[in-house]
C-alpha cells in the first residue's frame, strides 16, 4: 500500500463572507476513496470545514458533491479514478441547491418534494439474486430465490438514496426553482407503481402533470448519466408522460 500526497481545492463559504477556494495537501493511501481525503483535510488541517456524510457506503446519500465539476458520491469514488496524479482535485457543492456553508447545501426544498411524492423507502425485493446497480455483465448467473416459511415476501430499500445528484445535474432544475426535478418525478413514478388505490394514483399523476412536472423535462438525460444508484429518473419521467398521454386519449374517446 503506497501513500499519495494529494492536493484538494475546496470551495469555501461562510455566512457573511465571499466564497473562495482553499487548497490543502493531505497524505492518503492509494486505495483511499475521495471521502477519506476530505476526512483527512478536516482532521489534520481545518476543523471549520463543513461537509455532509454519514454511511460511507452509498446508502445515506448525504455526501453528494461535485468532483472536478462532475456530480459524484465521494464515498464510492476512488481517489485514483478521478485524480490525474498532479493537478489539485477540485471539490464543489452540488448545483441548484442553496449553499449553507462550504460543501453543505440546503436540502429542505428537495425533501419537501420527496415527501410530497409520498414514495416509501421500502419495496418488494426482486425474486432473484444477485441484485446490483452497476452492470456486472455475466459475472454471476442470476438465481431465483425461495421465501422462508414465515415471510410472504423479501423486501429491500428503494435504489434512490435521495442524494440530490440528479437535481444538480439537471439543466431544467438550474432554470426553474420549482421544478419537481428528476428525483421528485422518479419518486412520483415509483409511488404510482407501488399503489393499488386508483384515487392515489390519480393524485400522483396530477402532481406529475402540473406546471412544474414532467413536461418541463427537455431530455438532456444528465440525470440518467449522473445517478449513482441506477434509478433511471429520465426513464421514469418518460413513463409518466406516456401514462399521462394515454390518459388524455382515453378521456377524449370517452367524452
Amino acid at each position, binding site marked *: 500500500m503506497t501513500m499519495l500526497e494529494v492536493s484538494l481545492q475546496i470551495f469555501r463559504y461562510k455566512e457573511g463572507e465571499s466564497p473562495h477556494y482553499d487548497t490543502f495537501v493531505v497524505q492518503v493511501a492509494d486505495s483511499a476513496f475521495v471521502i477519506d481525503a476530505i476526512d483527512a483535510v478536516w482532521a489534520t488541517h481545518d476543523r471549520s470545514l463543513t461537509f455532509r456524510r454519514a454511511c460511507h457506503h452509498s446508502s445515506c446519500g448525504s455526501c453528494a458533491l461535485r468532483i472536478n465539476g462532475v456530480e459524484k458520491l465521494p464515498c464510492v469514488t476512488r481517489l485514483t479514478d478521478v485524480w490525474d496524479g498532479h493537478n489539485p482535485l477540485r471539490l464543489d457543492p452540488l448545483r441548484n441547491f442553496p449553499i449553507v456553508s462550504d460543501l453543505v447545501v440546503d436540502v429542505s426544498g428537495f425533501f419537501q418534494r420527496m415527501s410530497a411524492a409520498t414514495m416509501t423507502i421500502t419495496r418488494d425485493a426482486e425474486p432473484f439474486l444477485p441484485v446490483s446497480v452497476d452492470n456486472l455483465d455475466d459475472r454471476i448467473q442470476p438465481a431465483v430465490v425461495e421465501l422462508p416459511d414465515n415471510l410472504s415476501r423479501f423486501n429491500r430499500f428503494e435504489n434512490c438514496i435521495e442524494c440530490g445528484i440528479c437535481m444538480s445535474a439537471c439543466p431544467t432544475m*438550474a*432554470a426553474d426553482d420549482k421544478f419537481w426535478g428528476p428525483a421528485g418525478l422518479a419518486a412520483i413514478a415509483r409511488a404510482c407503481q407501488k399503489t393499488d388505490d386508483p384515487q392515489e394514483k390519480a393524485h400522483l399523476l396530477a402532481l406529475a402533470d402540473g406546471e412544474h412536472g414532467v413536461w418541463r423535462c*427537455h431530455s*438532456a*438525460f444528465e440525470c440518467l448519466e449522473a445517478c449513482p444508484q441506477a434509478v433511471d429518473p429520465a426513464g421514469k419521467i418518460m413513463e409518466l*408522460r406516456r401514462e399521462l398521454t394515454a390518459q388524455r386519449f382515453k378521456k377524449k374517446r370517452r367524452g
Partner: protein
Amino acid sequence: MATLKHSKVISAGRWFDVRKRKMGMWAYALNRITGIGLVVYLYLHLAILSLLSHGSGSWDAFVSLARSPYFLALDVILIAGALIHGLNGLRVALTGFDVGIKAQKALFVVLMLVAIVALGTATFMIFGG
C-alpha cells in the same frame, strides 16, 4: 438561515454550461441554440417578405443581394440549424414518450450523421450546381 444563492441572471444562463456534461446535455444545448437561431431567422424572413409590399424595386434589390456568396453561406448555416433542430427534435419526440431511451445516445449520433450528409448535399447544391 442565510444561504448563498446565485443571482437570477446566472441561474437563467446555467443551462448553457456544457462543461463536463454528457452527450444528452450537448444535444439539449444545441437544440436550444438552434431553436433561438431559427426564431430569429423567422422574424428576419417575415421582415424581408414584407419588402414585397414596397414594390418590385426593393424586392429585386434584395434578390441580387441574396445571390452573393456571403448570403449563400448564411443559407448553409440556416440549413444546418434546421437540420440539427429538426432531426434532434425527432429524437426528443421519441424519447419524450418513452421510446428508445436506452438508445438515446446512439440515436443522437445517427441523426447528426444524417444531418451532416444532408448538409453536405445542400451545400454542394447551393454552391456547386
